[in-house]
């Protein structure tokens, strides 16, 4: 036998099995290309002088991407390979019967893997290099960095990709050897036509599916604050994933069998063929369908989430930095500080720099950890023992003045002495603030005259995302009275002295450079330490800082959110490709399966049109079930994502809703396109 026999046979096999092999090769190629790009981008040789820090975010994200893609590639290649090998069982059995030893077959398989590696990984790296520049430009555009960069080859990425995919393919090859070793030729010959059994009804799995799915959805519906959402997000995801597998593998069969039980429903032509066909199909395809469903959900969650974050960047910037110039600080009641005076001084100084002040926001507040029982809010002297549990967090109570509230919202609250407004509703409208534990504790009684809208928040506390209540007191005197009570009670309990936090935001007509000039002038050598009030006394405080919204902060936000969005799209595309391939393989295998049934039913007296119609609707249902379930998953997920986004200061749940809807819409179109493309292959096989 000539030396080149086995390599040639291997090549022939690849070409002959083109219908299965080329999609597999394409998968290797695409994942390798994606892996290479991820790896190349994470190496960050494009960091131009001065933007290294900004680029670091992308480097970090792409490193995450490499890890995710790596894990995904291993799983997915094993999956597609096993499909491929099942289809080829007969062919390999034939070789064995015709006198090729298992060693020879293994040799042929090895050559095939080698070709796959050369073409797939090598081609992938080439395609990756072609797309690399485009991807970088896209990433940089999303990150709002100058998109034009030089092309450069990243040797480390090439080597890593080649080695990693070599490893993956070696793994699949070993798997194939193992499979080969276990089978005898007769089994191999029969391999692809083993009779399919009727699925058993697995009540336990169905019940488990109902419970886990219900549990996951339950979490999504009941969780009301972001910290809980973050803590329970992955629990919910895990439950829903388990639930999805159970749903497709057991619950669906249970439902279909119940349908079969109903004679009047079942014994009608379309139902008869459809229901029995689906029971049959579910048995084999449950896992595939669940995979499609979970991949779809993942893609949509990822893209809609990162899209919301990206489009919400301005929102979160405006939340975190309500004005162009943001002054924040803290002072004690014993210090000489007056916000009005300070505002006046800063206004003057800004105008001295030649900029016009076009708007301002100013408010003062003090916050306390309190525990509520009925209409009493108490500041306890002793701290809770042990670590705080999530279910028993104290209520963070933020006290504002009516003046501050007006400055923030533009709404004037008419509050008299002893009256307050709050985002929390107190029973009977009576509120008492109590300081300390014992009889001697201080006490202030208030009446609630107004309930504030629940979506009112301050960035200072919104990000903390604990249970928070906002209380608006009539004026500064009331706020000071409250602090005095705190201080009085605190002297016994060794609390630190309470202080007032203040915020001053100024908008100017200045551009970014001018704003930076102003920042330098205000906090330069003759900084605010020298400020005096109108009576000539020095103004005192504990802390003060100035932050600019525009410039560095905006750039940083876009670097993070843009990079994140890029990663979302990138991984999303890869997952869509994987999904398309799973669908394609499903269509092919179902096509071959249905061809036989198609023939038999025709002989028994079903018209071609009826057969087409019934198979069509069946296939359609089976294919769009994952999408429908993924849509439901996405809807429930939205409840959690909405909360999670507030951790990134995106409070615009309407925007998030639109992003989810748009993602679902676009994804449905893509799904439909993939379906139609693969359905053509199916019909070709069936009508052969």
């Amino acid at each position: 036998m000539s030396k080149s026999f086995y390599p040639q046979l291997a090549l022939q096999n690849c070409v002959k099995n083109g219908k299965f092999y080329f999609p597999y090769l394409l998968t290797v190629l695409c994942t390798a290309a994606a892996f290479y790009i991820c790896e190349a981008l994470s190496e960050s040789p494009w960091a131009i002088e001065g933007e290294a820090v900004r680029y670091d975010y992308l480097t970090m994200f792409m490193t995450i991407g490499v890890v995710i893609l790596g894990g995904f590639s291993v799983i997915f290649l094993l999956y597609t390979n096993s499909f491929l090998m099942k289809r080829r069982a007969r062919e390999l059995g034939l070789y064995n019967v015709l006198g090729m030893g298992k060693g020879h077959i293994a040799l042929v398989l090895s050559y095939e893997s080698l070709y796959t590696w050369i073409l797939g990984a090598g081609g992938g790296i080439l395609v990756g290099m072609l797309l690399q520049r485009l991807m970088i430009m896209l990433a940089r555009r999303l990150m709002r960095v100058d998109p034009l960069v030089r092309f450069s080859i990243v040797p480390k990425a090439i080597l890593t990709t080649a080695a990693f995919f070599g490893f993956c393919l070696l793994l699949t090859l070993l798997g194939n050897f193992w499979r080969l070793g276990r089978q005898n030729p007769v089994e191999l010959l029969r391999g692809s036509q083993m009779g399919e059994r009727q699925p058993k009804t697995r009540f336990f799995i169905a019940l488990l599916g109902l419970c886990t799915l219900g549990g996951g959805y339950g979490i999504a519906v009941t969780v009301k604050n972001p910290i809980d959402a973050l803590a329970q997000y992955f629990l919910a995801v895990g439950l829903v994933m388990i639930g999805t597998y159970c749903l497709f593998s057991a619950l669906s069969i249970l439902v279909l069998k119940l349908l079969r039980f109903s004679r009047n429903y079942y014994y009608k032509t379309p139902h008869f063929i459809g229901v029995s066909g689906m029971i049959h199909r579910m048995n084999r395809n449950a896992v595939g369908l669940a995979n499609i469903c979970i991949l779809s959900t993942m893609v949509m969650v990822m893209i809609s989430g990162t899209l919301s974050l990206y489009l919400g960047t301005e929102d979160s910037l405006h939340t975190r930095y309500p004005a162009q110039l943001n002054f924040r600080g803290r002072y004690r009641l014993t210090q000489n500080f007056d916000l009005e005076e300070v505002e006046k001084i800063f206004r003057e100084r800004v105008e001295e720099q030649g900029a016009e002040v076009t708007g301002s926001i100013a408010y003062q507040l003090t916050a306390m950890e309190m525990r509520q029982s009925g209409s009493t809010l108490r500041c306890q002297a002793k701290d809770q023992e042990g670590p705080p549990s999530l279910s028993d967090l104290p209520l963070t109570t933020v006290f504002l003045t009516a003046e501050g509230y007006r400055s923030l919202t533009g709404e004037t609250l008419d509050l008299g002495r002893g009256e307050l407004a709050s985002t929390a509703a107190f029973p009977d409208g009576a509120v008492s603030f109590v300081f300390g534990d014992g009889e001697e504790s201080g006490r202030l009684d208030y009446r609630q005259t107004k309930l504030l809208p629940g979506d009112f928040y301050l960035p200072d506390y919104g990000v903390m995302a604990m249970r928070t209540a906002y209380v608006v007191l009539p004026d500064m005197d009331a706020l000071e009275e409250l602090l005095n009570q705190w201080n009085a009670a605190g002297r016994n309990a060794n609390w630190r002295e309470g202080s007032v936090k203040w915020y001053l935001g100024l908008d100017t007509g200045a551009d970014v450079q001018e704003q930076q000039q102003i920042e330098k002038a205000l906090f330069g050598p003759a900084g605010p330490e020298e400020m005096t009030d109108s009576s000539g006394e020095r103004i005192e405080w504990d802390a003060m800082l100035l932050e600019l919204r525009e410039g560095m902060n905006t750039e940083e936000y876009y670097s993070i959110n843009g990079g994140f969005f890029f990663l979302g799209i990138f991984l999303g595309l890869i997952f869509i490709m994987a999904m398309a391939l799973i669908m394609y393989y499903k269509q092919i295998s179902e096509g071959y399966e249905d061809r036989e049934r198609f023939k038999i039913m025709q002989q028994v007296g079903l018209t071609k049109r009826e057969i087409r119609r019934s198979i069509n609707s069946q296939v359609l249902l089976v294919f769009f079930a994952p999408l429908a379930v993924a849509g439901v998953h996405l809807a429930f997920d939205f409840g959690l994502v909405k909360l999670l986004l507030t951790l990134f200061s995106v409070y615009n749940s309407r925007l998030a809703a639109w992003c989810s809807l748009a993602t679902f819409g676009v994804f449905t179109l893509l799904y439909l396109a993939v379906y139609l493309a693969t359905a053509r292959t199916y019909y070709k096989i069936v009508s052969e």
Partner: protein
Amino acid sequence: MAMLEVNNLKKIYSSRFGGSSVQALTNVSFSVEKGEYVAIMGESGSGKTTLLNILAALDKPTEGSVLLGGQELSQIRERDLAAFRRDNLGFVFQDFNLLDTFSVRDNIFLPLVLAGKKYDEMSRRLQPIAQKLGIGDILSKFPYEISGGQKQRTAVARALITGPQLILADEPTGALDSKATDQLLRLFEEINAEGQTILMVTHSVKAASHAKRVLFIKDGQVFHQLYRAELNESEMFGRISDTLTVLQRGGNSHE
């Protein structure tokens, strides 16, 4: 008038681009009377399957005509064909052609469900047939759970349940062991004795020896035919064997 009349059938398969063509049937004519049990014999490639496909209206002849119960098959519109086949023809195949997705009962019901019959009626029709075929206790099983003989009897039940004019059987014993073969052939005789017309294509001498008449096809033509008349099975077996020997030697006899 004969129940089935086949006149001068000719079938030529040509490749899609008109290159080479194969003549599967040259000139086939015969007729089957109501209540007859006819076997058609011939070697592989003699045109048996083509003939059966044309009789089943699954394929169209190049020339010639087929009349079933006076109805010209080629005159039936495409969309009525399936219903015609369902109502008038019953099929029994070598490899059973049962659907994995249905239980035995549902496999038998299939043509009736397609005809839009109610469950009660289907159930009523099934009862005597199931009893006669001895499959009453496996109705709820699935095809992969039963033996080859049981599968073939299920297929026969499916063919009988519509009360067809003609049963077309394509190598019905091909995949059965000898015991199941005997059972099935006896069953066919019984059904035939009750008045059911059967047309069977086979190359098993044993199967053919149960028929009342045997047609031999060679090179796309009816080459010879044998009537069983008063002969018993083993005599018939001998006659068929002799004829086949002549056929294979390339003789040219016409009785």
